[in-house]
């Protein structure tokens, strides 16, 4: 039986193990523990081993090893190539939210200074209205509009950065659905490792959790697509085949994510085949209709 501070052989003799915290950790991690046959360290064993003068020293030494272990685990958690991409996508989505909220407010404000203004017929982003607002008499409002324009520019730049980084970190997934959507799916899954271990059916409904749980709970229609709806091949598909396209695309994303996670390089043959199949599903029944 292997323990961090030593091992017990078949005759029940305890053999202490010495070393730095790192060496002790490596020694334990190189062995496998069979929980069926395992019996934990006992106070008798610890004290009989003669390695530790008292309980206090035992706990102190063990803590050294465990703090070292935790530090390694934490370092590993942020070392993945996807860690920064994840933060960038989340920032991007929050910027969108903030910009939308502020825009609404600024337009309300503008209405006060210019009562005849109506947004009717001016659909689209705030960008269309902003130049107008910046010509307002109200100085504070002009200041706010300037800030908003700055935010919108930062948002556009960040979106481009996300797309570019996604192309490097998750090349195959990005090739299928575009960098932005690929990064969003990955972020929502909780990282590349998580996405790579997800079945296609889960990928398909990532981002449609509310609909999914209401389906499971009260039997409302199941969602056909979550975030992947944002990809043009899904939302441009005709209604009759949209679910099929979403399902196929999700299945291919699941494979692409695994290639990205384990190999990290674009796989041309896979991409050609996958894209062909998806286009066929989207276009194939066009001909029939």
């Amino acid at each position, binding site marked *: 039986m*292997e*323990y*961090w501070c030593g091992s017990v052989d078949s005759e029940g003799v305890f053999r202490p193990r010495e070393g730095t915290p790192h060496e002790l950790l490596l020694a*334990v991690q190189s*062995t*496998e*523990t*069979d*929980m069926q046959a*395992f*019996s*934990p*360290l*006992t*106070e008798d064993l*610890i004290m009989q081993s003669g390695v530790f003068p008292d*309980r206090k020293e035992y*706990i*102190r030494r*063990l*803590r050294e*090893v*465990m*703090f070292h*272990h*935790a530090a390694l*685990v*934490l370092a590993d*958690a*942020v070392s993945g190539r996807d860690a920064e991409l994840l933060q960038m996508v989340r920032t991007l989505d929050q910027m969108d939210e903030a910009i939308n909220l502020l825009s609404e407010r600024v337009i309300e404000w503008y209405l006060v200074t210019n009562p005849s203004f109506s947004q009717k017929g001016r659909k689209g982003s705030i960008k269309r209205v902003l130049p107008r607002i910046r010509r307002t008499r109200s100085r504070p409002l002009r200041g706010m509009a300037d800030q908003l324009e700055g935010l919108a520019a930062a948002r556009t730049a960040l979106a481009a950065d996300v797309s570019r980084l996604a192309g490097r970190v998750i090349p195959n997934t990005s090739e299928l659905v575009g960098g932005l959507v690929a990064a969003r799916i990955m972020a929502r899954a909780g990282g590349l490792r998580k996405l790579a271990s997800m079945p296609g059916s889960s990928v398909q409904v990532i981002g449609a959790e509310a609909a999914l*749980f209401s389906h*499971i*709970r009260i039997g409302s229609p199941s969602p056909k697509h979550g975030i992947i709806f944002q990809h043009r091949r899904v939302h441009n598909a005709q209604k009759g085949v949209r679910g099929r396209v979403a399902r196929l695309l999700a299945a291919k994303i699941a494979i692409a994510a695994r290639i990205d996670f384990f190999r990290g390089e674009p796989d041309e043959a896979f991409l050609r085949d996958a894209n062909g199949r998806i286009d066929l599903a989207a276009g194939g029944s066009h001909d029939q209709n």
Partner: protein
Amino acid sequence: MIRIDGQLVSPGAGGVYNERMVKGYRVWDPFRSKLAALCMLDETIDLTPSMRVLYLGAANGTTVSHVADYVEVVYAVEFAPRPLRDLLVVAEKRENIVPIAGDATRPDRYAPFLEEVDLLYQDVAQPDQAGILIKHLPFLKRATSGPDEVSGPEQVSGGAGGPTAILMLKTRSVDIRMTPEEVFSGTVERLREAGLLIHKTCWLEPYHHDHAAIVCGIGDR
């Protein structure tokens, strides 16, 4: 357990998470901590200075810090990097907390670092909460045995005071298709099948909704 004016407190240096202090003791808020809620609802639960505790689902170490105020040593298992960072900060200041960066569904990965414990506390909100508890039963001390066991029959029945396992059941994390009551009775059944004696169960109302505490002892096996 120490109570001051009906409030649960623990002895120890304050300032872990901006907790209130009363007469030099740290107030242990039952609305924040499920273990505190259980102690408020069930006065027989006790943490004693000689206890060794295996705490699964340590999160950022707030409840762990209170437990550490009472007992000899707490082995605190947490997997997620974010809360783990906070847990390490708490553990640095309390020398009887042993932080374990590990996945509670895989005890084999950290088993060599643990020792026998008197209290096994399971607060990992995963679908298989009972399973996680059962996997850790090998770490729970067997009820006192051997030549020096001459204590009365109440010991044999595994009453309060012996090695204890507590499961904090978050019914909403098990299966949203089942009602909390169904999840609860299913879980109790599983623990019984695993050879545990159910000492006590209680819902943590009004402190935590849809949460139940299941206090068990180890059977004669």
